[in-house]
């Protein structure tokens, strides 16, 4: 039992009948991943990349078309019952459905504790502690239908932890949480991983949190894993990418400015331009950051653009992600 | 598609005209028909359920006497015709009221409610559109059940004037039950539970409107309660037309028609008001998309 999760050529093809014509959609395509016991593993990918389908297969909700997987050493096809006692599952995309809206938080948790065979005294202690941790104690007698999305998400998170499983499948766990709760949830997951040695398989859109938490990251696109490495290694892939970041305060015509910058001979291309609070951040790929900074600054100055900074930009996971998923050369 | 292109297409200036009401309603009917057509199986079930219903009351009529019905002034056809008209029209309006509620619930369930209400469509037109299609379907079922009844031995007075009068009464029946449907939908939006309310209403109206027996058999207090239900007047009128050959020249019919018109005049503003309250309440506590 060397790996907590091990898939071998795991594949899922969905059949879809549209106007009588059968269509086949390869949601997961021969995926081979291995997650060690106690590892914090991240699964990254755009919408529709197959992350959720992959996790649902590991959770025994969806049967694979081809290949199989082992969770905690048990086969997901042959021993679903044993697999089910090994993991806790959270599915953020449901936006707080998947709970009984006409029961209160406590009853929801109690129900699943019974279903997960948690002894009564332990269940009570844990439910109390989890409700307190997620700051739901004072609302715990209110029906879930009157909860905000964030509160529902917290109840679902508590449900996934309730039976203290060795493996946690966390599908977008911070979706719908406010910033402070998201920070706390990340801290909890980190502690569960480092203190209790739980294996965590984590998916997210948020590059920052994946980078911060995960020891290893797999990137999925169109059902395939296109990269599988620690964040540092992935970042290494962009070693030869040099970038400069411009923070613009005020500008009349952004597209014109961007065009002018891209025409500079030192700028290889414009990586992206996006609004961040009151500023516009433009990232430029260049040959040499230190040479580029003064040139870019003087160009902006001559265009009459008010800017607050021109600085060197570290390649982020987002760059890798964009680079890989757009199918560009690595 | 590049962002610039897309922005170009969207921002292209198109003069916004008000879509004519009939077009809006037609689009609802077409949409419902398309959805309904994917459940062809349902039609079969609806029809077989209807046939079974008619046959049930045919056999029931075999153990009844027609004495009370004839004493109440419904001349031909006996108990079976009497019960057939009662059940067919009662089911007709029950089906209609229920489908108003159900379509709203379905919209809430699918989460399309919020989308539709956030478009520029007036909610009254929205309601009208929602019910139009189900009235078409239930009218077809009504005619079919009368036909099945006729095959089994129900008899009607068929003269142009009696049929015309029956149709007028039917239209008034529909109009009055639209109000009831709208009213109950307003309540449902708030309490989130559809069918039990409609079912309870359906049973109550069966009890006091004389669906299965002449009103004379009821004790006086239930007979009085029955006077509050538009179904009572419609059934009496329609039966007098189809079983006794009465028409617009008969004072009894005129009384029924006037009662129905009064009901509609009084109930329409109340129904719309209650609906508005329920709708606003649901918007206030943000539960429009809930069910």
């Amino acid at each position, binding site marked *: 039992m060397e790996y907590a999760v091990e898939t071998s050529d795991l594949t899922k093809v969905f059949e879809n009948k549209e106007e009588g014509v059968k269509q086949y959609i390869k949601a997961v395509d021969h995926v081979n991943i291995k997650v060690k016991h106690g590892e914090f593993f991240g699964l990254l990918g755009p919408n529709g990349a197959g992350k959720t389908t992959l996790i649902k297969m590991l959770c025994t909700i969806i049967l694979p078309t081809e290949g199989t997987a082992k969770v905690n050493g048990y086969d997901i096809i042959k021993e679903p019952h044993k697999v089910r006692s090994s993991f806790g599952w959270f599915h953020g995309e449901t936006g707080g459905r998947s709970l009984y809206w006409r029961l209160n938080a406590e009853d929801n948790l109690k129900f699943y504790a019974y279903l997960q065979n948690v002894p009564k005294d332990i269940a009570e202690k844990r439910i109390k502690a989890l409700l307190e941790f997620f700051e739901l104690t004072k609302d715990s007698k209110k029906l879930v239908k009157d909860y905000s999305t964030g509160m529902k998400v917290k109840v679902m998170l508590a449900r996934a932890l309730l039976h203290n499983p060795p493996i946690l499948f966390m599908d977008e766990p911070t979706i719908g949480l406010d910033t402070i709760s998201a920070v706390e949830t990340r801290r909890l997951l980190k502690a569960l991983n480092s203190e209790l040695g739980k294996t965590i398989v984590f998916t997210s859109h948020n590059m920052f949190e994946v980078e911060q938490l995960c020891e290893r990251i797999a990137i999925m696109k169109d059902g395939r894993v296109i990269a599988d490495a620690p964040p540092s290694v992935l970042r290494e892939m962009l070693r030869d990418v040099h970038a400069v970041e411009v923070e613009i305060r005020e500008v009349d015509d952004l597209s014109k400015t961007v065009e002018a910058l891209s025409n500079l001979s030192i700028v290889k291309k414009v990586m992206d331009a996006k609004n961040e609070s009151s500023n516009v951040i433009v990232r430029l790929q260049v040959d040499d950051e230190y040479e580029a900074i003064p040139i870019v600054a003087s160009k902006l100055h001559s265009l009459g653009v008010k800017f607050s900074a021109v600085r060197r930009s570290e390649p982020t996971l987002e760059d890798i992600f964009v680079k890989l998923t757009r199918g560009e050369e690595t | 598609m590049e962002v610039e292109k897309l922005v170009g297409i969207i921002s292209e200036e198109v003069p916004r005209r008000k879509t004519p009401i009939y077009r809006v309603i037609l689009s609802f009917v077409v949409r419902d028909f398309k959805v309904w057509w994917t459940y062809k199986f349902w039609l079969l079930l609806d029809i077989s359920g209807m046939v079974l219903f008619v046959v049930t009351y045919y*056999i029931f009529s075999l153990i009844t006497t027609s004495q009370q019905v004839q004493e109440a002034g419904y001349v031909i056809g006996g108990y079976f015709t009497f019960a057939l008209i009662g059940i067919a029209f009662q089911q007709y309006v029950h089906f209609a009221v229920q489908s108003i509620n159900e379509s709203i619930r379905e919209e809430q369930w699918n989460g399309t409610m919020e989308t539709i209400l956030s478009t520029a469509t007036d909610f009254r037109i929205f309601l009208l559109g929602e019910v139009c299609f189900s009235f078409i379907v239930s009218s077809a079922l009504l005619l079919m059940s009368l036909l099945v009844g006729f095959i089994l031995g129900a008899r009607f007075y068929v003269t142009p004037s009696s049929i015309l009068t029956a149709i007028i009464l039917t239209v008034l029946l529909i109009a009055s039950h639209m109000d009831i449907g709208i009213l109950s939908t307003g309540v449902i939006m708030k309490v989130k539970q559809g069918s039990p309310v409609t079912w309870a209403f359906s*049973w*109550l109206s069966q009890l006091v409107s004389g669906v299965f027996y002449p009103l004379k058999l009821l004790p006086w207090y239930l007979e009085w309660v029955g006077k509050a239900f538009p179904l009572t007047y419609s059934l009496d009128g329609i039966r007098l037309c189809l079983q006794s050959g009465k028409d617009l020249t008969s004072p009894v019919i005129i009384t029924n028609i006037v009662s129905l018109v009064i009901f509609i005049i009084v109930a329409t503003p109340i129904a719309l008001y209650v609906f508005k309250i329920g709708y606003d309440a649901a918007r206030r506590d943000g539960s429009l998309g809930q069910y």
Partner: protein
Amino acid sequence: MKVEELIKLFKDDKPRLSSEVIHVWAVFWANFKIFLSYRTWVIMETISTVASIAMYSFMGLQVDATRVVLAGYGEVDWLSFALVGVATANYLWMCVSRLSHSLQHEIREGTLEPIITSLISMRSYIIGQSIRGFLVSGYFMLGVIVVGIGVLRTPLIINLETILSFIAVILLMVLSYAGIGIMAAGLILVYKKGDPLTFLFASVTEFLGGVLFPLKYLENFPILYVMAWLMPYTYALDAARRILLNGATLLSPNVLLNVTVLIVYTVIFIPLGLKVFKWGINRIRHEGTVATY
């Protein structure tokens, strides 16, 4: 509560012990609580029940009593005759529709997925749901009988023996349909829609089972007559009428024959139903459509 404290709490763990009884209890308890939260539903359904009984009592005024004798239960009045029919038909309808209804709910609200990933077996789930169905429907049946005897003074024969026999017959009736209910549930999992089917089921039962009229009158329609005697409900209703109208017990030969038929149906249909249900679960796991939000 800090992260550290929570972690400490999770450090002490006890082995989890599997218990089907607790699973069944949990499903029953949670769903019963959900049911109680639908207060309007309970009130409205109670009104419907009372109104329908009142209506039948007025319908009865037009019935020619001599034609009811043909049913073979002696000189009983039509109202008692119909009341037993309505009570049992309603009960059956509620039990079967409850199961399919709550299952559709679980699919739509996405609560079926966490249930599948938990340790409960589908058998325990169905049993838990069904127990709730028995009890909830029992409330309404009790209502029908209490109003019938108390207000309308129908001469039903009520003593310890008939009550026990009646309850046994009702249980057998539900069990003989349980297989069909479970089968329908399995089909609902796959096709997501089931209401029209249950509706047709209700009208067929009400019509063919002879709720409102003696089955003798169906003899002119040979196909329908044969179909009627193929339904377990017809046997259950016959037994229930013999018990409550004529004072027979479970051991009376006529009742015993009916009971045997019901047992045969139970034995055949429950395993079949469970098979279809299992097929349904695996089918949706294969299609990946457990939840359809």
